[in-house]
């Protein structure tokens, strides 16, 4: 098993080191790092904008680049949190707590330096986990029939919607809405049109890019326009020299970093708990086991490296279920799966054996990309810091253009441009009503496959719905679903919130970054 994984990895490095692939990987992490720094642009919007540009590329290059945007943005987001106290990317909100006080003490550079290091450690751990766990998962998943796939998807969808941000019941509603949106268009099995209202443009279904850009682009711009506080660049003079930590700092950061990594990798194994929850849990754990918990929030290096390492380990770990089972854990992963599907690649357990170049190339590119990011972040910190000063009034109109041309380029059709505007308006209404749109994307991407497998399972069982509890593996998944729902109801009745995030948000709220920044956090759906 180990030997097989190492051979695969060796092969993957061969793929990832091909000149064009390494170039695309570099473009991906560069763009990712850039948007991570820019307040008000998330990885979701960026990946959707870049998505149409990858149609002409080979699948390997496309997925390496889009994956690079995803983890590159995590590096950039930390800069934003530490130097500006702007938690513009939810996973890094908790880093503000100790990161910004360190900046005020003039130790922001040290915090950044150790963050880059901790990120690399966390990411490496996540990648290692992916190398050894994915083949195991695949082995199990290859035994699955349609009934098992169906109940596994159900579990993934439920976890993705109830464990994420906000009210669980609203999350489930959004997932159902996403599943429905996935069924718009021509029915694969019978060929009849559903919910197209005579518009031939909708025959192929709602465009994934239009949906993603509407929900995470336009709706987000509507939410942030004129609400973004001018950025205080008082503390942003950081050079490469400031980043070198002292020996004492290194010593203090060492164990928290590893604890964060472990917490992050554990969180990534539970479907639906993305990097945001991982970072909050890591911070809370670190605070609990610390000998001086009262000092957290005053600029402790432990409070910076622990959540950062956890975020990165969880980001890489999130790729495990996505790549090996074809079940995405959050919206970004759903988008990446969508990108694969556009390239004509069927996600699922057969992916690794059918397209080893994609899987192992991606794994190898993670390492290459993370090394690139360390190299990009340490010497070029000055440039990234300068980018923080780009005002929002330049940012969002330019982004609007990229949204429009992006959806146009997907099909060379203006209809989709109109579609994205309508979805954007709808998405903003949902945001205002307290819904988080991320589960919509999850449901949308999984919807058609869910329906297909459900139909197949029903056909095999001759219309017996009990097949889901009669087959043992499927029964386990159904039981897990029931436990998930039951625990949510139990915690609700007990009056306590089931998910950990509000507790952690209170921690953040106590420190209150700038009022406007805090206001923007819940509205940023990019996890």
């Amino acid at each position, binding site marked *: 098993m180990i030997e097989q994984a190492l051979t695969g990895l060796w092969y993957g490095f061969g793929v990832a080191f091909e000149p064009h692939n390494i170039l695309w990987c570099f473009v991906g992490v560069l763009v990712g790092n850039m948007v991570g720094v820019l307040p008000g642009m998330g990885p979701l919007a960026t990946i959707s904008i870049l998505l149409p540009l990858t149609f*002409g590329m080979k699948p390997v290059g496309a997925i390496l680049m889009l994956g690079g945007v995803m983890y590159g943005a995590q590096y950039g987001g930390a800069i934003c949190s530490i130097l500006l106290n702007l938690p513009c990317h939810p996973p890094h909100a908790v880093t503000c707590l100790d990161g910004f006080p360190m900046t005020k003490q003039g130790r922001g550079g040290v915090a950044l330096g150790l963050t880059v290091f901790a990120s690399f450690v966390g990411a490496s751990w996540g990648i290692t986990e992916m190398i050894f766990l994915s083949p195991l998962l695949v082995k199990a998943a290859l035994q699955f029939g349609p009934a098992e796939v169906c109940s596994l998807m159900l579990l993934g969808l439920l976890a993705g919607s109830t464990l994420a941000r*906000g*009210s669980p*019941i*609203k999350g*489930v*509603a959004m997932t*159902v*809405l996403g*599943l*429905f949106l996935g*069924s718009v268009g021509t*029915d694969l*099995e*019978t060929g*009849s049109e*559903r*919910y197209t209202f005579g518009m031939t443009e909708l025959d192929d279904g709602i465009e994934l890019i239009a949906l993603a850009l509407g929900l995470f682009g*336009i709706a987000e*711009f*509507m*939410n942030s*326009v*004129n*609400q973004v506080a001018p950025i205080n660049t008082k503390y942003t003079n950081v050079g490469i020299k400031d980043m070198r930590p002292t020996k004492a700092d290194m010593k203090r950061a060492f164990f928290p970093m590893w604890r964060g990594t472990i917490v992050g990798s554990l969180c990534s194994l539970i479907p639906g708990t993305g990097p945001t929850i991982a970072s909050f849990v890591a911070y809370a754990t670190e605070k609990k086991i610390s000998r001086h918990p009262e000092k957290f929030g005053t600029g402790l290096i432990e409070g910076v490296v622990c959540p950062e390492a956890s975020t990165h380990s969880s980001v890489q770990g999130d790729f495990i279920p996505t790549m090996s089972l074809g079940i995405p854990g959050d919206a970004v992963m759903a988008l990446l799966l969508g990108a694969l599907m556009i390239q004509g690649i069927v996600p699922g357990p057969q992916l690794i054996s059918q397209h080893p170049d994609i899987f192992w190339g991606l794994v190898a590119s993670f390492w290459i990309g993370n090394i690139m990011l360390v190299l990009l972040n340490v010497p070029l910190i000055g440039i990234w810091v300068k980018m923080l000063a780009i005002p929002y*009034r*330049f940012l*969002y*109109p*330019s982004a*609007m*253009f990229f949204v*429009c*041309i992006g959806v*146009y*380029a997907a099909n*060379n059709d*203006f209809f989709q*441009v*109109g579609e*994205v*505007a309508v979805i*954007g308006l709808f998405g*903003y*209404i949902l945001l*205002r*009503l*307290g*819904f988080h749109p991320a589960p919509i994307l999850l449901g949308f991407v999984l919807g058609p496959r869910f*329906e297909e497998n*459900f*139909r197949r399972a*029903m*056909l095999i069982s*001759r*219309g017996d*719905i009990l097949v889901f509890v009669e087959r043992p593996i499927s029964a386990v998944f159904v039981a897990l679903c029931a436990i998930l729902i039951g625990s949510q109801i139990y915690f609700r009745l007990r009056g306590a*919130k089931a998910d950990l995030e*509000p507790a952690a948000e209170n921690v953040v709220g106590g420190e209150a970054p700038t009022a406007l920044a805090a206001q923007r956090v*819940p509205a940023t759906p990019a996890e």
Partner: protein
Amino acid sequence: MRLSTSLRELIGKRDFYAGGLMLLLGLFIALKGSTYRAGTLMHMGPGFLPTALGVLLMLLGVAIAAASLAPGGPDEHGGDQSLLPEHPQWWAWFCILMSPAAFIIFGRYFGMAPGTFACVFIAALGDKTASWKGTIILASVVTVFGVSLFSYFLQVPMPILTWRGEF
């Protein structure tokens, strides 16, 4: 008396509308879905899953609305129960939504360069601090950059400049 105050309270609650919207959406989905062939469990027709989803969404909508009525229930969402944000940005919202419309109109009849300019220009007007000069400069810069990137480099098939080219 008591009923009317509670009714007024209810109308001020965001979750009530959230649930109502889901209920309406679910109703619409289920009604439209029931016009497609549902089939049997063994041979499902195209209408089966959407109709089921619509019904499920209706139930969830009712649950969300009901939770907002439960005493002390909705406060857990941070207490923000207003439908509009503190400072509604009608003009900015309008500009952002008009920006794709401008892209469609100008892009279709005059080509990519005018479409891009109009799209960025209109979106940028939404900002409170926008000035004519700054907006024009921004739109021009994005147009030059965007056209060279998408038309020359990425070869998006859209004429740069045209006059009512394609209807």
